[in-house]
């Protein structure tokens, strides 16, 4: 298939703020455009601090939030035209979300496999119990788990890494073309972080899934993405090939972001200074 997979064209989302008096508007996402090609799957990282509009953008792409202006097209079709159960399911099949906090993504009172089976039935059309088991197990195998490990478990019985991988497996059941991952590793601990990030890379390389990787972690973005978009206050301030932009950022905001990244190379040298408190320097233990 050729042509663009996802086109985001001059998309704006504004929220009304304030009370009865002095009502104003706040542009959470302001005039953003980018394109993902269908024949060339890529990992596109969207980087920005909290409040930069990353999640609002993701929600608009997932069609859970209507943009105020501009258009989002998926395989050439405007997504606000997706109406009716069949077309909506078809859309959901192709774009799947992965949320930030795996502990909040699953209902703590329900067994985890319930979500997997529901996805298998509704999105992969698995009718019989054996087809369901097969679809769920195949997806879990792709993320390095198995149905036996997950079946009948409640969210609190799985570790954060296992839960996040289960969430990814759930997204994979319908074989999507695009995964929108909103901060998928920020709640997962560092040693598991690389296993999730490597998993995304493998999904991209082997299953040819495009991934929209929304993050504030520049180091993992540098590690896996092909292209980055750096957002500040709803606007794109810099975009380009990941390695190039993150090695030599041009925009002052990108430079600030890069300088805020804590580096393991700074052991004991202490660059920990707040903006408000420049005088503080690290003193030795004794």
């Amino acid at each position, binding site marked *: 298939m050729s042509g663009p997979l996802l086109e985001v064209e001059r998309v704006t989302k504004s929220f009304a703020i304030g009370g009865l008096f002095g009502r104003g508007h706040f542009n959470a996402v302001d005039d953003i455009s980018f394109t993902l090609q269908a024949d060339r799957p890529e990992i596109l990282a969207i980087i920005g601090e909290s409040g930069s509009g990353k999640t609002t953008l993701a929600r608009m792409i997932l069609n859970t939030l209507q943009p105020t202006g501009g258009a989002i097209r998926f395989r050439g079709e405007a997504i606000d035209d997706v109406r009716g159960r069949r077309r909506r399911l078809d859309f959901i099949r192709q774009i799947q979300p992965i949320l930030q906090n795996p502990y909040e993504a699953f209902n703590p009172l329900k067994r985890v496999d319930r979500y997997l089976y529901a996805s298998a039935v509704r999105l992969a059309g698995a009718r019989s119990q054996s087809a369901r088991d097969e679809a769920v197990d195949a997806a879990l195998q792709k993320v390095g788990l198995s149905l036996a490990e997950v079946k009948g478990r409640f969210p609190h019985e799985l570790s954060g890494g296992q839960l996040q991988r289960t969430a990814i497996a759930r997204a994979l059941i319908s074989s999507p073309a695009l995964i929108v991952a909103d901060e998928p590793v920020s709640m997962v601990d560092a040693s*598991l972080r690389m296993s999730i990030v490597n998993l995304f890379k493998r999904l991209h390389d082997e299953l040819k899934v495009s991934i929209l990787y929304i993050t504030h972690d520049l*180091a993992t973005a540098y590690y896996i993405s092909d292209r980055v978009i750096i957002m500040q206050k709803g606007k794109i301030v810099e975009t380009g090939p990941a390695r190039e932009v993150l090695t030599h950022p041009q925009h002052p905001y990108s430079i600030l972001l890069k300088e*805020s990244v804590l*580096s393991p190379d700074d052991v004991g040298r202490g660059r920990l200074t*707040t903006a408000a408190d420049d005088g*503080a320097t690290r003193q*030795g233990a004794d």
Partner: protein
Amino acid sequence: MTPALDPDPSPADRLRAAPQTTAALAVDRLRAYYMTHYFGVEREVRAVDDISLAVRRNEIYGLAGESSSGKTTFLKTVAAAVRPPLTVVGGSVRYGFLDRDIYALSRAELSAIRWRRLSYITQGSMNVLNPVRRVRQSFVDFAFRHMGLGRRAFFAAVEAHLARLHLAPNVLDAYPHELSGGMKQRVTIALATICRPEFIIADEPTTALDVVVQKDVLAMIRNAQREIGSSMLFVTHDMTVHANIADRLGVMYAGRLVEEASTAEMFAKPLHPYTAHLVASLPKIGDPTRKESLSGAPPNLADPPTGCRFHLRCPLAMDVCRAALPALTTTAPGRRVACYAASPLVTPSAAGGAKSLGAIQ
């Protein structure tokens, strides 16, 4: 109330009462298990298994390890915030400001030292702020009783404290939902340090904050700790955070401490293969080489493997690793490691990993 629990010693008194030589916190062979007994099936999860460590005065001691390695359980045990099914099976927890084990204290004595001399920034601590009351009320709830001041003097002290931490006094009149995540985290740090406690326990205070805010919050924690002169046990799974804040570092794996060193040494020359993996797998800008993730999962603590807990995932595993649990051994001044491959000095642990079920009720 004993003299050691004097509710309001001046900083000078504190120094006299506890000379520099005593550790701020000495944990000795601490074991805490989750003991459950359902339908006749007994199960014990050894979340903290034979941990000994000392935190020096004025130091930030970092504790690293993946989730389910027992870090949070260890903190709960150290803070004496233990509730069934978590049970302290053995060992002692002694603070520099107390003359006896924290578990020897009565409930009233414990509640007198909590927050006043020992404060605890819990995981997800932004959520400790009461969502339907202004921040001011949270300060009253947490600290008013401990400060022993009149209302006006109390708020003056709170505002002075906020000013020291570069927070505007008008945060007191905000509701928690009006503050950003980073701001809420700063307010909870102010809450935890308002009584100028001698010891602060921090559990993942910066997880899920974004990079810019994270750096500011870490700097604020470090500055507050230096200014009060307290000691701190700082837990996070993020090694880059440890690199920037901790003076010394302990690494936990499956309920046990596997390595301890000064932060600089730990990063320069990790001895335990697990630590070496943690340090080597950190992604860095400008380093496109592939970072391997560890295969396998941490062991089930209800049924830990025999021998070294790490041997199933360890690239250097030898026969001895499968047979006997290595003891945490001092291999050089200030360095301890529990790995046979790291040093010939490491010997099997006396505890040997024998099941304790039946021995205790």
